[in-house]
């Protein structure tokens, strides 16, 4: 009982509990859930969700939003495709170009936020259109589908049932975890998100921290864009079209605060798994396709309620303990 109470107090309970329940329910109810095909497919989806969730988590921990997350991915994909197909750039340098472009996109976002007096929300919203627009101008809406085979092979490569891209996502998550858990940069980002003024008085260079945070968010979008381009087998403007809402859901499900000051890398990773499992469950249970958005909304509200209940319980227990000590 004591152990259960202790477990319930853990901040990741609100994502781990539904995850475990859903996982067990799927094993029992759907024989196809554990098929090799399904495991590989779900891991491919988790890969993208995880990285974009981490990208959004980084911006959220600054107390900002990254609405341009999908557009950065789109522009990155287009520029990689253009460099490989139209300019004949080899694969690895092209991927490097993609990562640099995505980081610059994030850097520019951070720079505008810190140098202008415009609201970060407006800047992000404007960049969403600008980055997408540049991508449309370059591609004219036509996908780059003559990419080298290495790109497609990267998507198809597997170790057993685990796609290689999933290992890339895991390595990325570990990198982000180390940044937020052990580096001064991570601590500065969270401190800036929690209270920029207090962070400034503590000697933190808030403006450069914001720029670094957004650059990291951009870099993560670039990694996701590479994997998404490989999955599509082509570079196209629609890469990232479904990222924005998903990235928020993954980060928030994982316990990242919308108000800033707190990043939960493990939470975002688990949030991505939960999101993918929910989608998989709805299909495997043959839920009417028209019901999906409503159900996802209910699940989000439920997760929020569970977390609120957990926090209330902790608060009541603490008060009780204080009363007992008195």
């Amino acid at each position: 009982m004591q152990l259960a109470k202790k477990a319930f107090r853990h901040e990741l309970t609100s994502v781990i509990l539904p995850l475990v329940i859903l996982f067990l329910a799927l094993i029992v109810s759907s024989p196809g859930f554990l098929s090799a095909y399904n495991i590989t497919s779900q891991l491919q989806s988790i890969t993208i969700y995880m990285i974009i969730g981490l990208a959004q988590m980084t911006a959220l921990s600054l107390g900002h939003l990254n609405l341009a997350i999908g557009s950065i991915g789109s522009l990155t994909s287009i520029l990689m495709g253009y460099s490989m197909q139209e300019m004949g750039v080899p694969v690895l340098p092209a991927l490097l170009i993609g990562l640099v472009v995505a980081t610059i996109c994030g850097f520019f976002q951070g720079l505008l936020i810190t140098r202008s007096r415009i609201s970060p929300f407006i800047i992000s919203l404007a960049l969403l259109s600008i980055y997408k627009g540049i991508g449309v101008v370059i591609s004219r809406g036509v996908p780059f589908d003559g990419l080298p085979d290495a790109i497609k092979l990267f998507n198809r490569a597997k170790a057993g049932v685990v796609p290689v891209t999933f290992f890339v996502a895991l390595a990325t998550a570990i990198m982000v975890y180390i940044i937020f858990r052990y580096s001064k940069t991570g601590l500065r980002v969270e401190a800036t998100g929690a209270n920029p003024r207090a962070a400034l008085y503590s000697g933190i260079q808030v403006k450069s921290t914001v720029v670094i945070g957004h650059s990291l968010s951009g870099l993560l979008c670039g990694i996701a864009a590479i994997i998404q381009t490989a999955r599509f087998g082509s570079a196209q403007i629609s890469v990232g079209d479904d990222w924005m809402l998903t990235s928020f859901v993954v980060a928030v499900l994982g316990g990242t605060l919308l108000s800033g000051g707190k990043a939960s890398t493990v939470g975002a990773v688990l949030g991505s798994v939960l999101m993918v499992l929910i989608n998989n469950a709805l299909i495997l249970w043959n839920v009417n396709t028209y019901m999906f958005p409503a159900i996802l909304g209910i699940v989000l509200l439920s997760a929020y309620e569970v977390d609120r209940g957990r926090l209330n319980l902790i608060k009541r227990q603490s008060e009780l303990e204080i009363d007992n000590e008195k």
Partner: protein
Amino acid sequence: MKKIIVVLLIIALAGTALYANGNSDTQSETTGSDREFVEKYPEIAYGPVDGKSMKDYKFGFSFGGIADYANPVEGMANMAASELGIPDITIQTPQNWVQNEQNQKLDGLIASGMKGIFMMTSEPTAGNEQINKMVDAGIFIVTMGGPPALPSKSTLTLATDVYQSAYDATIIVIEAIGKKGNVVGLSGSLNDTNTQKRFKGIEDACANYPDVTLLQLVGDISSAESSMTKVGDLLAARGSEIDGLVAMDYYAAFATAAYMLENDNYDHIKAVGIDSDDKVIEAIKAGKMVGTMSQNPWAQAYISMYTLKMLADGWTYKDGQPAVVDSGSYLIDASTVDDYEPMVIGETMKMMQTWTDRFDPPAGR
């Protein structure tokens, strides 16, 4: 208040679960085995062939996104399933035209035990990689509605020849305006390679008439909202200059019909749309639009189901047969507006008469 929210959530979830259950029960009950077999095509086996069970004939359908175009699919696919003695179709279509979303639906269908899928990709190029993955996993794939980027591992595509359809529609408009005047063309998402084909069809048709000017091509009309804005802006700004309008996208045709019905200022414009949304049909009946190019989702669904059954039975698509089979495009105008559905279903049955000629039968038959 909190308790009320929690109770409401529980009720909503329970309701959803019951609904979902009911849905799946209905689907599993209506297998073809207890239905009367209509022996229309005796060369195609009824029910499972030797060594196969009903599980080998579980087929799914996924359209690229939710659209009225796919409305006839379920009825026609289940009609074919009934005639073939196989389970009814299972449908999973993404809410939005987003390939990632559709990939999850398709992967879920396969995890649910589907052995064949007929589908339209959300995006022709990105969807092709998913098709490759499914075919490599041993799933039979037939595409419909619009072809994926070619070459593709899909066995075949049943689709409208979008270039020809746009070309024909433009000719009808040009004839209606007396072969003289200004024409505008509207089409859908710029991501869709079919948009370029449609624009080319409109351009080529206009180029045949020296007194016809192609005033403007407007693309990226890919949602109800954007269609109302773009078509509204176009008509407001250049309505008086436009003599003919070709709307080769579902939403563009819908918005055109809506504005033509609501506003008498555009009565001088001769417009031809695409597909058969109620609004478009209403505009044709009211004499506000010349007509619409009906595609044939009836044939695409019905013939796709037959094709999947044949592939599961061991038939193979002959070498040299086209990757894309034109399922036809028919003008619905004032003279045919009341009976176009029986007409296209009739055309479907005509196509089916010679369908098996395109395939090699299974060994030993």
